[in-house]
C-alpha cells in the first residue's frame, strides 16, 4: 500500500447546559451537587459585580488598566471547581473568577491593577502564580511546576489558562511539546473568546478548531462550550484524571466570548459590530445557570437579591482593603531585587541617586574640588 493512512484523529465537542438552558441529563448527572451549583452561581454574581466596580474604579482614576472577565466566568470557575487545592493554577489575566474561587482575596487582583506588586504576593498555600502580562509565557511555568509535582510525587498537577491569541506564541508550542514529550501532568486550557484585543480569532488560527492545536503533540484534545459550567467541569475533571493517573497533558478549547472591551484601555466598538456581541450576550453563562436553578426550584428573586447584596458587601470591603493599604515605600522597589542586595543597589536605595557625586556628597565640598581648579586655566 504505497499510499496508506499514517494517522486518523477526531476531536469531540462537549456541551451539557446549552445556551437555552437545556440540560443533558445523561452527561450532567451527578456532575455538580445542587448546593455547589448554587454556590458557583453566587460566586459568578460576585465576580460580575466586581467587574462593574473595577471598571468604575478605572474610569474614575482609582485604578489603572483593568481587563474585564465578563461573560467568561464559567470557564475558569468550572475548571477550578474541578481541580484540587494542591493543583497549580497558572493564569493569564482573565480568570479572576477562578482564582477567587480557589481563595485568592479579591484585593490582590485589585492591587495588581492599581500598580502595586503586593497584589502578586500570593499566599503560598493557594498554589496560584501571579497574573502573567507577557502573553503565552506562563504556560511554560505550568509545565515546570507540573514537572516538579511529578518529580516529587506529590500528586499535584498544573492547569494553565490562556487565550486564543496566546496560542500563536512560540512559548505555547514549546510548553505543550515539553509537557507531552516529557509526560507531564498539565492541563492547557484555552479560553477562545473570539478576540485578542481587536484581532479576531480567525487570524490566530484559520483551522476549524483551536482544539486541534493539541493534536500536533499527540495530546488528548477536546473542545467544549466554555459558557457551560457543567461541560467545563466534565472536561477538566477528565483532564485532571488523565494528568494525575497517566501524567498525560490535555488541550482544552473552551469556546466563550469576551462581552466587554479587551481592557479599560480598549474601545471594542472600533472593530466589532454590536450584533455579534448582542447574540453572545444571550449565551451568557449566568442566564443559563439561572434558568437551570429556576427549573429546579433552587433559586428565586429573593435569593438573587441577597446574593447581589452579599456581592456588593464583599466587593466594597475588598476595594476598601485595596485602597486603604499604606502606599508602598520607595525602598520596596529595591528590597526584593535579590535575597541579599549588592553594594551598588544599597547605595542607590540609601541615596535615591544614581549620579556618583550625589551618592557621595563629600565630593561636592569645595575643598575637594581642587582638581577642577587645576585644569581650568
Amino acid at each position, binding site marked *: 500500500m504505497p499510499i496508506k493512512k499514517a494517522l486518523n484523529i477526531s476531536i469531540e465537542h462537549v456541551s451539557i447546559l446549552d445556551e437555552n438552558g437545556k440540560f443533558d441529563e445523561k452527561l450532567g448527572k451527578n456532575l455538580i451537587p445542587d448546593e455547589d451549583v448554587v454556590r458557583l452561581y453566587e460566586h459568578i454574581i460576585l465576580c460580575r459585580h466586581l467587574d462593574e466596580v473595577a471598571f468604575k474604579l478605572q474610569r474614575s482614576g482609582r485604578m*489603572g488598566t483593568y481587563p474585564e472577565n465578563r461573560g467568561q466566568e464559567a470557564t475558569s470557575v468550572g475548571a477550578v471547581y474541578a481541580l484540587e487545592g494542591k493543583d497549580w493554577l497558572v493564569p493569564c489575566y482573565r480568570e479572576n473568577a477562578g482564582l477567587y474561587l480557589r481563595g485568592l482575596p479579591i484585593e490582590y487582583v485589585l492591587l495588581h491593577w492599581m500598580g502595586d506588586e503586593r497584589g502578586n504576593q500570593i499566599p503560598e498555600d493557594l498554589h496560584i502564580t501571579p497574573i502573567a502580562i507577557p502573553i*503565552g509565557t506562563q504556560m511554560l511555568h505550568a509545565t515546570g511546576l507540573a514537572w516538579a509535582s511529578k518529580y516529587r510525587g506529590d500528586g499535584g498537577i498544573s492547569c494553565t489558562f490562556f487565550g486564543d*491569541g496566546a496560542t*500563536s506564541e*512560540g512559548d505555547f508550542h514549546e510548553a505543550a511539546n515539553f509537557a507531552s514529550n516529557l509526560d507531564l501532568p498539565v492541563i492547557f486550557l484555552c479560553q477562545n473568546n473570539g478576540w485578542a484585543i481587536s*484581532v479576531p480569532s480567525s487570524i*490566530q488560527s484559520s483551522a476549524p478548531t483551536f482544539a486541534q492545536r493539541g493534536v500536533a503533540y499527540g495530546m488528548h484534545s477536546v473542545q467544549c462550550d466554555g459558557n457551560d459550567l457543567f461541560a467545563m467541569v466534565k472536561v477538566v475533571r477528565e483532564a485532571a484524571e488523565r494528568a494525575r493517573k497517566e501524567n498525560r497533558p490535555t488541550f482544552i478549547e473552551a469556546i466563550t466570548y469576551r462581552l466587554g472591551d479587551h481592557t479599560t484601555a480598549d474601545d471594542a466598538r472600533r472593530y466589532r459590530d454590536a450584533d455579534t456581541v448582542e447574540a453572545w450576550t444571550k449565551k451568557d453563562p449566568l442566564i443559563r445557570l439561572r434558568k437551570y436553578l429556576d427549573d429546579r426550584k433552587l433559586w428565586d428573586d429573593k435569593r438573587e437579591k441577597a446574593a447581589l447584596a452579599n456581592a456588593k458587601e464583599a466587593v466594597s470591603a475588598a476595594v476598601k482593603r485595596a485602597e486603604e493599604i499604606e502606599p508602598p515605600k*520607595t525602598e520596596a522597589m529595591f528590597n526584593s531585587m535579590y535575597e541579599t542586595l549588592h553594594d551598588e543597589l544599597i547605595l542607590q536605595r540609601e541615596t535615591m541617586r544614581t549620579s556618583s557625586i550625589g551618592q557621595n556628597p563629600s565630593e561636592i565640598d569645595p575643598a575637594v574640588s581642587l582638581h577642577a581648579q587645576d585644569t*581650568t586655566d
Partner: protein
Amino acid sequence: MANLTLVQAINLALIQEMEEDDRIILLGEDVGKNGGVFRVTEGLWQRFGGDRVVDSPLAESGILGTSIGLAMAGLRPIPEIQFEGFLGPAYDQICTHAARMRTRTRGAYTVPLTIRVPVGGGIHAPELHSDSPETIYTHTPGLKVVMPASPYDAKGLLISAIRDPDPVIFFEPKRIYRAFREEVPEDEYTIPIGEARVVQEGEQITMVSWGASVIQCMNAIENCNHSVELIDLRTIAPMDMQAIEQSVKKTGRCVVVHEAPKTLGLGAEIASRIMEHCFLHLEAPVQRVAGFDTIMPYYKLELDYMPDAARITKAVEEVSAY
C-alpha cells in the same frame, strides 16, 4: 504646516511614505482596523487596505522573522511591536538575523526594515509596558537605533529610518505621544540618522539625553542657575559623538539622563567616550542620572524610579560645584 502631536507626526510620515513606495507593508498586532493600541496607525488600514496594513497573529518572533523575509525579498516592512516589553520574543530574530544578514552574506542580502516600538515609562501602564531597552540593541552591531523627542523630529527621523537600507529600531517615547504639539511641515523631509540636536546652547554644563527624558531635562534647565547646553541624541546608534565632544570640550562638565537602569545604560557608553575623547577637558566626572538598577516598578512607584527634574537639577548643581 500643522500643529501635530508625536502620534500624528508618525502617522503622517507613514501615510506619506506608503503613498510614495508600495514596497512598504505594515504589520503587527492590532495595527489594522483598530489603528494600533496607541492609534499610531489610525486610518491606514482603511486607506491602504488589508494587503498593506496587516493584523498579524499574536507572535513577536513571527512578526519580526516574517518581516526579515519580506525585507530580504526587497520589500520595506514596518513591523510594530506593541510595547517594548514584548520585544523579548523578537530579540532572537532581530539579533541573530536582522542585524547579521548583510555582513553574514557580505552584502548579498540586506534587511531594510523599520521596527516601530513604543517605549518608556510614565503613563501608569501595567508591568512590562514601561521599560527602556535601548542598551540591548545598541550593543548589537548591525542595527541602528533611533528615538525622537518631538513631533518634528519624529516625522523626519521616521522617514529616514524607512528609507534606510539597514534595519532600524524606531523607539517611540509613549509618554510624550500626546504630551504636546509642534509645527510639523506637511511636505516630506528627513532628519539624518546619526545627528544629534543641540536643543539649547550653554556654556557651563553639557546635558545629554534622548526620548521623553529630554522633556524632563528641559524642565530642570528652566529652574536652573547654570548655563546648560542640552543635546538631544535623537539617534542612539550610531551616536553623534562629535556633537557631544564639541560641547564637553567647551563646558568640561556633563550630565547624562536616561530612564534605563544605570548599569550599562547608554550613559555608561557616553561617559566612557567622553573620558576617552575629552579627558584633559573634564572638570568633573560625567554624571549619570538614570533609572535605578531595579526592575521598573509597577506604576505606584514608577515616578520614584524615573529621573525627574529634581534629580537632574541636583546633579547639575553637584557637578558644577565639583
